[in-house]
Every structure is written in C-alpha cells, then in structure tokens.
C-alpha cells in the first residue's frame, strides 16, 4: 500500500509503457525507414524532401494557415474569456462554449462546405434575397487558394478550446489586484498588463503550441477544404504514403518527421524562454 501512496507515478506506469511501446515503436520504425535506402544509412530522403518544390510550397502554405489560425484563435478566445468569465461561474452556462467542442473537426469542415460553398446555404439565401444575381458571385471561401475556409474552420473550433484553457486561470486571478490598479488610476489596459498577463501568459503560450501543432499536422479539415495546389502538408504526405507503388513512403516519413522536429524545436524554445520568465516573475513578486 505504502508503495502506491509514495510513488503515485506507478499508477501511470501501464499507460506510460503502452504509449512508449506502441507509439514509440511506430516512431522508431518511421525514423529507421526514413534513414535507410537499400539497407544503407542515408539522408537522401531528407534531401529529396527539402529539394522538392511541392513540399516547400506546401510547408509555407501550411505554416501561414497555422500561424494565422493560431493567432486569431488566441486573440478572440482571450477577448471572450476576459469579457465573459464572471458569467461562466455558473456551470450550466459553460455549455455554450462546450457545444462547438462536441463536434469533431470533420463535421465542422463539412458544415463549412454546406453553408459557405457557392452552391451552399448562404449562397442560396443571398441569391433568393437578391443580393447576388448568380450563385457564382458568392465569394469563394471553400477550396480557395488562400486557405480562408480552413482558417475559419480552425479558428471557430479552437476558440472554445482556448477559453477552456484560460477560464480556470481567470477564476484563480486575484481580482483585488485589479481594483488596486484602478484606484491608482490605471486603465483597463494597465489592469491587463500588470495583473492578468503575467498569469495567463504561460497558459496562453502552451495552448498556442498545442493549437499550432495540431493545425499544422491535422488531416481532415484540409482534406475537405483545401485547394489542389498547394496542398497542406498532411495531405501531401498522405498522398506520398498511400501512392500506388509505395516508393515514396520513406519520403513521407522524412517529411512528417521534419515537421515533428520543427514543432519540437519551437516547443523547446518556448519552454526555455518560459522558465526564464517564470523565474523573473517569481523574483518580481518578491516571493
């Protein structure tokens, strides 16, 4: 019994082992396949990937979509949380931001098609009211070359997630501090900067990494809403992986591992930065 009380991590052991065994093995196989050609160790596939124009175009396109979507999800999520957190102390109101989270991304993506495509619901409505004379005049946001449809879907889906992450922080904030700032003549912005920002920043950064990594590598939304060229990275890699003769498979592994490394290095940079910040915060608070 004692063993468990002291070392609660033991409870995690089965999950931990399973993850290591199953996921770890998969990753190891992917790494090994991306590094071997005809049984010899080589970086050839990585070189091929980075010389491939399709990959470069896809990568910058995906990066653009992921950055814009993450930024706006964070911003809007933060604004909504600030604005509404005291209403959300009542539990049943939480349902409002839970609802969009209940639907999978795929369903939202398909909703976008049904609502916003040129033969979709809004187009028909505008046509019937007489705002547009022909369905073709409806603005193209599904399968458009700037990825606007994808961004809208992601922003719409990630805002509730951001709220979910930020809400507990706002509930724990010492709101008397806000009053202090205000009595000293501070504006709303000063309250945000002095009281809220130091608390929410770590959570905000962590959340943005999660959202960013997800958008950069998720498949289903671009599958529904992407243009033919450039495609987002997950689509391109899927194509390489499942292509007829399987010869592009190591390249697919190399591409996905490169993306993983990219996300991982951003995460490392963030973490090292945050640790410094946290340390400074602690000192600043004089604790």
């Amino acid at each position, binding site marked *: 019994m004692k063993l468990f009380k002291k070392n609660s991590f*033991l409870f995690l*052991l089965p999950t931990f082992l399973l993850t290591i065994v199953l996921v770890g093995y998969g990753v190891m196989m992917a790494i090994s396949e991306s590094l071997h050609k005809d049984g010899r160790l080589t970086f050839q596939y990585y070189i091929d990937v980075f010389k491939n124009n399709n990959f470069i175009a896809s990568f910058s396109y995906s990066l653009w979509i992921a950055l814009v979507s993450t930024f706006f999800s964070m911003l809007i999520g933060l604004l909504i949380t600030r604005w509404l957190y005291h209403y959300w102390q009542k539990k049943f109101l939480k349902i409002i931001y839970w609802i969009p989270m209940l639907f999978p991304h795929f369903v939202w993506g398909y909703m976008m*098609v049904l609502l916003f495509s040129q*033969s979709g619901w809004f187009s028909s409505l505008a046509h019937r009211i007489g705002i547009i004379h022909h*369905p*073709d005049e409806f603005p193209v946001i599904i*399968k458009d070359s700037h990825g606007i449809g994808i961004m809208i879907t992601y922003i719409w889906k990630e805002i509730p997630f951001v709220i979910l992450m930020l809400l507990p922080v706002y509930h724990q904030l010492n709101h008397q501090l806000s009053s202090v700032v205000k009595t000293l003549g501070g504006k709303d912005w000063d309250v945000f900067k002095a009281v809220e920002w130091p608390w929410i920043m770590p959570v905000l950064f962590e959340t943005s990494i999660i959202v960013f990594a997800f958008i950069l590598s998720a498949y289903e939304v671009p599958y529904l809403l992407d243009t033919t*060229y450039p495609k987002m990275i997950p689509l391109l890699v899927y194509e390489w992986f*499942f292509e*007829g003769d399987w010869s592009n498979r190591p390249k697919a592994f190399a591409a996905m591992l490169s993306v993983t490394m990219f996300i991982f290095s951003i995460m490392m940079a963030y973490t090292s930065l945050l640790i410094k910040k946290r340390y400074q915060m602690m000192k600043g608070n004089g604790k």
Partner: protein
Amino acid sequence: MKQLFALLLPIFIFLSACSTKELSSAPEAKLLEQKWEQIEQEAKNTKIRMFMWGGDEGINHYMDEWVAPKLKKQYGITFERIPMDTHEILQKLLNEKKAAKEKGTIDIIWINGENFKNAKENDLLFGPITEKLPNFQKYIDIRSLNTQYDFGTAVEGLEAPWGKVQFVFLYDANKISQPPKTFAELKDWIKEHPGKFTYPDPTDFTGNAFLRHLLYEAVGGSEKLLKQGYNPQFVKNEAEKMWAYLNEIKPYLWREGETYPNSLTELDRMYSQGEVWMTMGYNEARAESLIKNGTFPTSTRSFVLESGSIGNTHFLAIPFNSPNKAGAMVTINFLLSPQAQLEKFRPTYWGEGMSLDPNKLSEQDQQTLKQINRGKSVLSSDVLKKHLLPEVDSRYVDWLKENWLHEVVQKK
C-alpha cells in the same frame, strides 16, 4: 506488493503475446491439394471476414442483405463485412507480414490495379486459388486478357474476377439536350458553358481515369500504349497534346481551373446541387441507385465518347494470413456463381457488370440476363461493348498524377 504484481501482469501478458508466433502454414498448403467437396466441408459453420471499400450504399446492401443470408443458408458460413479503404487494408497486411503474424483477421479482400500489384510484389496473397474454384472454371472466359492481366500485372491465379465496370460521363438531360461525342466537342461545350464542367484531381481514381482517356487519344490509341508497356520517355513526347487540351479548357472549368474536386464524391455533390452539369464515374450503372435515393436528378443520363471508354475488371483475393482460407474460397466461389452475379447485375442493389462470360451461362440464365432492365441512365450493352478500351500499365496512374501537377496546375 500484490497490487504491483496485478499492475504488471497485464504488461507481461501484453509483451509475451507479442512474441508468440503460430507455426501453422503446413495444413494450408495442403488446402490447395484437397478436393472441392472437402474444402466445402471444412468451410461449414465457420466465420469469414471480408474487408472492402464501403463507400457505396448499394454495394453494402448487396453484401449484407443478399450475400450474407444466402451464404449462411447454403454453406453455413457466417459472413461479416468490414468497411475499410483498400490501401489501408494492404497497409495492415504489410504490417502483419513484417511482424510475421501468421494468423490475421482478414479472409477476403476486394482488389485491383496498383493495389494488386503491391500485394503481389510483397507476397501478401494466398494462392493460386482460381484453378480450385468450380465457378471460375465453368463460367469465366479464362483466355480473356481482362482475366489474365490486371492493369498490366499478370494475375497468375491469385485473384478471381468479381465484376466489370466501364467509364461513363453523366449529365442532366434537362440541361443538355445533345451530349458531346468527341473530345473536341467536349471542349467546345466547356467553352460555351464556362464553369459547368470539371474533373476530380487525378489522385482520385475517377479523375485519373478521365485523364487516361485523354492520354489514349493523344498517343493515338490504347494499342500503342499497351505495346510500349511502361515507357515514360515515349509518353512524355506524345502527351503534349493532352496537356495542351487540358490547359485550353482550364479557364472554362469550374472555378476557372484554380482548384479541382478532391474526390468523385465532391464532384457528385456539385452535380447534385447543379453547380456543375456533368459528372462521371467508373461504373456504367452507378447513376441508377443515386437517382433512386434522390441524390441525382431523375433526368440524369450517361454517355461515352466515340474514342472509347475504359473498362476494367476488379477481383477478389485471399490474404496470406487469412484464418479461414477454406471459408474464403467457398465464399469467393459463391460470389462467382451465376445466381450471385445476376443479382449483382440487377439495379436493385448494385447494377454492376458481370465477370462471367454470358455465353457460358445456361439457357435459363441467359434469358434472365436479357430481361433485366438496367434503367434509363445506363447505356445498352452493345454501345458499351463497342466502345470498350483496356487499361494500360498501372504505373501510368502515378505518372499522370505527378505530371498533371507540373503541366496543368502550376502553369499559369
């Protein structure tokens, strides 16, 4: 300590399960030497699992509502259909092969083309099975090229032909009175009706088939391509006409050719909503069930171009590690029976072409075949037969995918 043990036990079991191998390939090799009656006997009261693409309701109903009860009644076989995309099935088999897992979960797969080529090259299939199947011997034209080759890959008895399909264009007769007859006429039609035509991205099966028609035309007939085998240099020189054609129609396509539907499903959706006026498909009768369930307008009809329409055969095969190979063989044999094939031909469920040679059927079955009305959207079998073109080497599928991107999409 007890708890710790209880905790670790499942892990040990898990790990030990990973290393257990069953060495049981010997009796299965014998299976192919047995008499058919013995195989049928062995298959009785067993269960078989068929993994197959599940994207078509008509096909699924045929399997679940017609095939499954019949198998149970006639052979005592419990049939279970598991929907999965074919390339994912092969991936699963390949993983099992790498892990030396000799007892898998899949008994039958539905396969053709590049998937068959991959499966054959990686030794994922059990066989040769076709010579054991009575219905294959009795009703199928064994000498036909469509039975011997699958997209240019020799079949060698590893898969049994299940059905035949042919490519057709679909259009709404209320909107188009006279469908185009040649690629030149199609081009004129597209120019007269900007935004009303497009084709799926060639990573899609149907989109790729559309391009292959153009490739045949550009090269000067399928015979030339068949003779050449896979020869990228040859097509590269000859394909200029095809790229020129595609680039010429591009500004008149849906969305001015800036983007293409990812899949046939997407093109179908646009057609059903009237966003485009034509769709297509690699099954001459596919519109029937879609008209019946209200997806397509009832005025939907089909046409083929005078230069021909590509047809292909799709097959059934047994994976190397099927746990019930006898049951799988009996099931495949049943699916090749005139009874099952005629039911498949009827528009009730699937409405797809038979893999059997009509001339080898009994008098009575031939009569039944003649009486089946496939529906207004399906062309007559004479027209279809007259325009039938063969498939060429499956490597052209990838060749088109790659080059289309450079030659069409990235060209301004």
